[in-house]
């Protein structure tokens, strides 16, 4: 169930300064992602796959090139529009889960909705938001853990909470950066099953991984080598 081009990267270049040297991480990456796709970006450590994912999700800016979402150039968007893009259009899942320790599971899942609303807006929609957050937690088998703090959960549980948080605002693209990288094989497999299930339901997913076995579970594999796409199948 693939739609027209959803997310497009055109000639993306990115470099970082490390001490005295300038390290060129991305050297002209071109990529198109259609709606409903499950794409895995693979490559060795330092190949620039996480950098590419961050640029696709507007967490970072390319030095050169452009990223378009549904034809709209992200570089031309204001800071407010980019915040909205990160809040509504994409959902991030990180290798280290990145949950807020001060909030419980339910509050962590609600965070994107709270961040996107004013106090009044939140008061108006909070019941519906809590209902959706509970549904998501139930969907990922975390309903009983809603009041727990992140440090009371296992790695797999934390990652499921992170996925629930990423899906809270029903984003069009889920961007997952090594979502199983910090988990054992069995737990990571469970997370992959979750992602597969989501994709089957129509969710577009871009996943970064260095593990070929995990990448094989995606419908499309994009291999990044030395800052360019070496293979796309």
């Amino acid at each position, binding site marked *: 169930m693939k739609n027209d081009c959803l997310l497009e990267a055109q000639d993306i270049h990115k470099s970082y300064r490390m001490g005295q040297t300038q390290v060129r991480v991305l050297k002209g990456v071109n990529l198109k992602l259609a709606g409903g796709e499950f794409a895995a970006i693979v490559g060795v450590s330092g190949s620039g796959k*996480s950098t590419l994912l961050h640029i696709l*999700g507007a*967490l*970072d800016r390319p030095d050169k090139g452009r990223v378009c979402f549904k034809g709209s150039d992200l570089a031309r968007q204001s*800071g407010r529009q980019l915040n909205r893009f990160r809040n509504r259009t994409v959902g991030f899942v990180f*290798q280290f889960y990145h949950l*807020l320790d*001060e909030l419980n599971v339910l509050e962590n899942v609600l965070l994107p909705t709270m*961040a996107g609303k004013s106090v009044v807006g939140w008061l108006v929609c909070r019941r519906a938001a809590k209902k959706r957050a509970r549904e998501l937690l139930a969907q990922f088998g975390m309903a009983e853990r809603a009041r727990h703090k992140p440090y009371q959960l296992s790695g797999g549980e934390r990652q499921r909470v992170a996925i629930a948080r990423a899906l809270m605002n029903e984003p069009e693209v889920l961007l997952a950066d090594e979502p199983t990288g910090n988990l054992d094989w069995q737990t990571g497999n469970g997370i992959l099953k979750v992602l597969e299930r989501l994709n089957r339901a129509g969710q577009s997913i871009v996943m970064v991984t260095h593990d070929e076995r995990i990448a094989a579970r995606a419908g499309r594999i994009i291999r990044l080598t030395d800052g360019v796409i070496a293979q796309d199948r």
Partner: protein
Amino acid sequence: MYKFTLAVRYLIRRRISYFAVAAVALCVFVVFVVITVLSGLSRDFKDKVHGSVGDCVVYTRSLVGFGYYEEFLELLRRQPYTKAAAPVIRNYALVSVVASEPGLIASGRDQTVEIMGIDAASYSEVTQFGQWVRYNKNRIESVFAPSYEPNLPGCVPGIDILFDRDRQGNYYAPDGPRRVVLEISCVPLTAKGALARAGAGELNSKTFYYSDHFEAGYSLDRRLIFLPIGEVQLLCGMATGHKRITHIHIRFKDGVALNNGTAEVKKLWEGFVAAKSGAPFENLLSQVQVQSWKDFSKVIVALVETQQTIMIACFALIGVITVFIVLVVFYMIVSHKSKDIGILKSVGASGFNVLSVFLNFAFLIGLAGSAIGALLGWRFLAHINTIEDWMFEKFDFQLWDRQITSIGEIPNTVDLRVLGTIIFCAIGTCLLGALLPSWRASRTRCIDTLQVAQL
């Protein structure tokens, strides 16, 4: 909503924020106590001065005085703004105290004092004299009639002129007036300013008998003796020929603004002086000034106010330290919470939202610290005199020596406006201290905090 929730959780869960709260609480406590005590001392002092002067004074600095006062008093009392007016003579004298009961009343003291000739009834309408006296509060007209022999000329000395105090400020005062003789001498002057008794000993002396004493609660108590105005007029040479006084004290009716009332009296006096143009001794009228009680007493009041301002400024510097403490604490917290900043930004929070989280946090620190400091300060002030008594008993410590200073209790009346201002400033101080680290947090790029290499 999450901004407030997160700020509350940071406050509760971050132990370092307790240090910031403690710093603010300590600062609020110290400033609150110091300002309350100093403001209380200043307010009490001003009230006492106001109570001894009335609202407005028509006076001359010349010891010769000025005449036509009865006419002016009559005119003044007819004015709609005047509640009461009292003629007064102030002069300097030598007093020699002869006590009949050695040990009970300090005897054998010769000293320079101020004498104030008053009409007790009218003067107590203008001032608080009626409340200061010990034995004649309810029959002020008898204040100069010694109860042991009413026909003798009485006098009302300040309590410190006659009695000694113990270290807790208690006087060795008798239950009723005793027969104490005060020999009072002063130099009489003519209306032209010459010595009235030149070549004849120069001094006028008269014996007065202790009929009551007063306690104004400040330096008047050790340097002033009240006498009947007629007697002082005689002593100072103001009764013969051109009758004179040196001061007219005025009390305005309720609702008359001090400045307006004083301006009205000034206008009235100028008109009166103009009407007396060409009259004998009119030159004495030109030396007369009209001032509000604040201007009249500004030399002594300004001294107290300056001391208060300096002390408050010194203690307000504590606020600067608090800004620095909060700044350091927030730098540490922001450093520890860099991951949270990245997470918030990754879910769409703006820089302003991140700034708000930390400023809310600073606000809560300020609020919690202020609340704790204010409560502790309130409790401390409520018991400050008990604490001082206890420290005096245990460690022989007093804030000031009651044998020297007329102030008895440490003032501890809480002014809610002052407390509100302190809390407002404390919260403002926290926000100021947190501003730079919070701004830094808001400018942090999430990618700089969420990359694996940064964790």
